[in-house]
Each structure stands twice: as C-alpha cells, then as structure tokens.
C-alpha cells in the first residue's frame, strides 16, 4: 500500500464532515471512489444499514412469534368459519374457551417477556370475538352483527387498556368503527351518507386526539407513528370524499354544513397542530393533497356555467402544476427547517 497516498488521504479525513452514513452516501462513495466488491462490502458492514447479530435475533424472534400467533389465530377463525357440523356444540365452545384460559394461564403463571404478554392479550382479544361468533352460530340468537361487535368491543376493553400495545389499540379502534357503523345501519336505519361520513370522521378524530394528546405517543417508535398516520390518512380521506359529495350534491342539509365546518376545522386546526406542535410533514402533505383535490372539484362545480370547458380544463391543468409546485416548495422548506432544528437540539 502506498503510504504517501494514505497519509495525504488521512490529512483530508480530518476536514471531512461526518455525514451520516446512509444508503445514498454509500452510493455516492461508490460513484466517486474506486472500491472493489470486497471493500464495498466492508463499507456496508460498517454502516448502520446491516443489523447486528443481537438485533437481528431479537427481530427474528419477534417476527416468528407474531407471525406464528397471527397464523394460528387465523387458522382457528377459519376453522370456526368452516362451520364443522360434526362437532358437538359444547365441544366448539369448549375449544375456544380452553384456548382463552390456556393463554391467560400461560401469561399469569409463566411470566413471559413483555412482548409475549402483549401478543397473548391480543390472542385473547381475538378469541373473545371467535367465542361470541360461535355462540351466536350455535344458538341462532338472532342478534344483529352490531350486537356481536358491541359485545366484542366491551369485553376486551380491560385487556386493551392494560396491554400498552399499539397494534391492539388499532384493532380495538377498528371494532369501535364497526360497532358504530353497524348500529347506524341496523338499529337506527340511517340512510343518509353524510351521517356515516360525519360519525366515522368524528370517532377517528377523537381517537387520534387521544393517541396524540393523552397517550402522548412516542413518535420515535415506528409502530406509534405508523398507526397515527394510518388513522390520520383515513380521517382526511373520508373528509375529502364527504366534501366532494357535498360539492356535487344539489340538496343542502344541516349535516352538509356541519361537514364543511368540520373539514375546515380539521384543515386549519390540523395544519396548525402539525406545524407548531408535532412537526409532522406527512400530515401536512396529506392535508395539502386533500385541499388540492377539493379546490379542483369546487372550481369545476361552481364555475362550469361561467366558463366553457375548454378554458376551464386549460386553466385547471396549469393551476394544478402551479399549486402543486408551490405546495412542494413550501413543504420542503418547512421540512428542511425542522431537520435543522432537530439537529441543533440533538447537538
């Protein structure tokens, strides 16, 4: 090895900024250097991209346990859906109840790790629903699907509360959504679509508020971030669809006005909250997409008598480019500013 080139190279190293070694930097290092496959493999192994042995083993253990539980639960649910007539009714009930008792006993007496406890509570929660389904199937109780989901939701509340497991909370939220939607359909007999839009967005907005504000979800944990963003995306999507219906509906009702006000509250309030407090660029991007779509529909609806379609389409094509460009420039500026602030806080 040429020591002079290494020494002169080393002098330069002192002046190099310690740019975080991500995939992009490794690609640029390859492009601007001359490394063979073995040296590049060394560089990748030195980077944070590849996991360490202990990290991979922990992740693999969690994956196998979680996937195993998921597949096992799915198998059990499929089995009862098969509606195997040859099995006595007491045997069917006993099988599910035995499963619940076995899992609960295992958690109490074997004192497993925290992750296994969370998976165990999730298993019990799913099996509770299976138990109610089997009960309803055997005794043909005539209960609505609403009663089934209501019972399921109520009976797992305690486990959800103690689990501290975001996936179970998310599943619980799905059950609440199903319960209330089915109540509106089957019990109240509501046919107005605006009611569904409003109720769904209200429930999930409250859930999001609880998750962000009361639970104070740790955004460094990817599971919390994923769940929060999925809920946010759902609320914004439903509100966008709702507003689109309102724009093109020639009837106006009290509920359509409420939906408009709720949408404006979400857009303005949500933008302020995610700019000032949480600094989450994803929510701002989702809000921007919604506003872009709604503005397009509003222009088409309210100016279709003022302009011919040729002029309107021409105008809208360039308006969308301009609006998207302005939104992107501003979002990128804000994102860059937040990254710098984070970096300074870290230093």
């Amino acid at each position: 090895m040429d020591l002079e080139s290494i020494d002169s190279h080393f002098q330069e190293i002192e002046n190099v900024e310690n740019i975080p070694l991500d995939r992009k930097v490794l690609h640029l290092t390859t492009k601007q250097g001359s490394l063979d496959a073995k040296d590049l493999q060394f560089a990748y192994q030195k980077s944070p991209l590849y996991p360490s042995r202990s990290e991979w083993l922990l992740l693999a253990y969690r994956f196998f346990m979680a996937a195993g539980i998921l597949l096992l639960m799915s198998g059990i649910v499929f089995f009862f859906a098969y509606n195997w007539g040859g099995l006595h009714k007491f045997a069917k009930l006993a099988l599910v109840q035995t499963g619940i008792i076995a899992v609960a006993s295992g958690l109490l007496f074997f004192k497993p790790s925290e992750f296994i406890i969370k998976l165990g509570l999730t298993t019990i929660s799913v099996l509770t629903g299976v138990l109610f389904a089997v009960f309803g199937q055997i005794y043909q109780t005539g209960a609505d699907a609403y009663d089934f989901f209501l019972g399921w939701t109520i009976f797992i509340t305690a486990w959800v509360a103690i689990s501290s497991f975001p996936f179970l909370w998310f599943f619980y939220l799905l059950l609440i959504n199903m319960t209330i939607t089915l109540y509106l359909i089957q019990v109240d007999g509501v046919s107005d679509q605006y009611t569904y839009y409003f109720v769904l967005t209200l429930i999930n907005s409250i859930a999001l508020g609880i998750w962000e504000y009361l639970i104070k979800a740790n955004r460094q944990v990817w599971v919390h971030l994923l769940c929060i963003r999925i809920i946010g995306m759902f609320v914004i999507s439903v509100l966008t669809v709702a507003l689109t219906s309102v724009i093109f509906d020639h009837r106006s009702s009290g509920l359509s006005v409420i939906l408009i006000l709720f949408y404006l509250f979400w857009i303005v309030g949500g933008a302020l909250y995610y700019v000032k407090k949480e600094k989450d660029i994803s929510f701002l991007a989702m809000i921007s997409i919604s506003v872009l779509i709604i503005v397009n529909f509003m222009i088409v609806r309210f100016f279709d008598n003022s302009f011919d379609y040729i002029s309107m389409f021409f105008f809208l094509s360039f308006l969308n480019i301009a609006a998207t460009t302005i939104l992107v420039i501003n979002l990128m500026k804000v994102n860059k500013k937040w990254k710098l602030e984070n970096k300074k806080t870290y230093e």
Partner: protein
Amino acid sequence: MNKIIKDTGLKDLLIAFKEEGIDPQLNLKKLREEYAVAKDNKAPVLVQVLMFIGSLIAAGFFLGFLGLCQFFESEILILILGVIITAGAIAIPYISKQNSSTEPLSLAALIVGSILIVIGYLSLGNFSTTVSLIISLLLSLVILFISASHLQKITAVYASNLSLFCLILDAEFMIGFNFLVLINASVVTFLLLKEPQVLSSQSRLGQWYDAILNGCSVSLIAVLIFSVNNRMYFDPQSMNTSFWWISSLLLIALVLWTLYETLELLGIKKQKIPLLVGVGIALMILIQAPGIISGILLLFLGLFSGYRIFSGQGILAIFFFTLMFYYNLNTTLLFKSMLMVGAGILFLALGYGIKRGSENQNI
C-alpha cells in the same frame, strides 16, 4: 462481527478504511456537491405522493383540454407533440439538476407526452391492443434508463409492470402472472442481497436503486392482489388457478436465499440448517398463499438491508394477504385452517428455538 454504530458517519468510514489499508481514492469535492444536491431535493414519501397526484390531475385536465379542442383528429400532430413533450419532460430534471420544485411539471409532461405517443401510434391505423401495450412497455423502459428524475423512474417501473400485466391479460396467458411476480421479486432480492457487488461493478447504478426497489416492491404486491383472489376480473372456472404454486415456489426460494445470506452475514453457523429447514417447511405449508410469502420476503429483505419501507410493506402485506386467503377458492376452509395452524405452530417453534439458542449462546 458487524457491530452497529448508529452514528457512523463518512469520516468514521474513512478512518476504518485507513485502518484496513484500503485507499478508496475518493473525490471528496464531487461527493460533497452531489450530496448537497441530493439532500436538498430529498422529498418525504407523502410529499412525493402529493407531486404524483398533482401531476396526474394536471395531466388529466390537459389531455381533456386537447380532446375538447379536437386535437386528436390530427394523427401526425398527436405523435409529434407527444414526442416533443416527452423529450421536454425528460430534459427538465437535467436542466434543473433534479430540483424537486420542477418534479410536478416534468412528471405531468411525461404522462401527457407518453399517452399522446401511444394514441398517435394507434391513430395511424395500428389498432392492435397488443402492439400499443408493447410500445408502452418499451417507452417505459427507455424512460426508466434515461430519466434523471426519481419520480419519473418510479412511474416508469409502474407503467412497465402495468403494460406487462395488461399484455398477459390480453394474451390470456394466465401463467404469465407467475413470471411477472418472479421478475419483480427477483430484481428486488438480487439488488438488495448483492448491493455491494452490483455497485462495485457498475458504480453509476446507485441512481436507479431507490426507484427500482420501490417500484418493483409495490408492483409485486399489486400483481399478487389483482391476479390472486380477484374474482372481479377472472372467472374462477376458466382461469387455471392451480399454477399459483409456481409463484409460491419461486418466492420460497428467494426467502430462503435471503435468510441464508443474512445468516452468513451475521456469522450464525450452528443453527443455520435448522432455521433454513424450519422456515422452508413452514413456507411450503403456505404454498397456496403466495401473497403471505411475498410479505415475508419483503420483511426479511427489509431487516437484512435496513430498508425500513420494505419492513413496513412486508408487515402490511402479511396482514392483508392473510385476510385475503379466507376468500381463496382453491381449497376448503377446513384445509386452509389446517395449513394456517400448522404454519403458525412451526413459526412459534422457530421463535422459541431462537430464544433458547440466544440464551444458551448457541446462536
């Protein structure tokens, strides 16, 4: 081996190179310049979605405007305008040095230009759907290789997959879906497992990596969704669904390869064979659910390479395809439940084995 240093930077890497006696002959000035450009233009995922949706809406309105102007009556003009707009769309990122503010315009222009080229060709009397799909495929591949814009490259990958999908449907060559699954899965697996080897042989390939990986992973899931369990498009009696085991076998091979490379990288020797055999058997039990196997592949690849988007996609795909497996028409619910329970027990056993092995320091 493989100690993670979470805050490892370029300087640390250069010091490590020196200690190993490796001279990277790095052009630091150019690296800094390119890094600054990349950092300034790196857009979060949902901002990219905003760009894509905005461009799509703009392109739709512009094509509507052209349609209303009866522009489409002149075949030659459509073709010429299509070529000019497409060329302009490709030129914009080069001129602006991939500035993210020009992405909406360049992507909208690309969509408009590409559609005009295909319509122009069809208008010249060539009404064959097959030929128009082949032109779309070739155009997408050309754009993928010559475009400088990340979004244009991803769109080109989606467009080529869509063209291939439609070609298979048009030809009623249903077994072809398995090859489409194989192409996407193999590309993604090979590019991640052999990343250092690929880049060392062709150092400029780095600029295509993200686009191809993201494009192929989403296309893989989309092909599985719209060709397996999709009763809307396919008559279950006419479509020969019994060839789905081909996709599963290919995906199982890729999962095992990924697992093998991971165990080699981490120096896990003693438990390598039991792990590979256990996972192989569990996946063979799931042979009728290629969607679940594809989710496992993406998750393993994400864990191997630190590509977190793949880990997220893998988890969502596993949940989604487990749910969709309920509607699989190939077999009874009883058999499906036995398969799921069997695979579930095996996975639990593997998890328990890893925990015991770690505690006993056998792994």
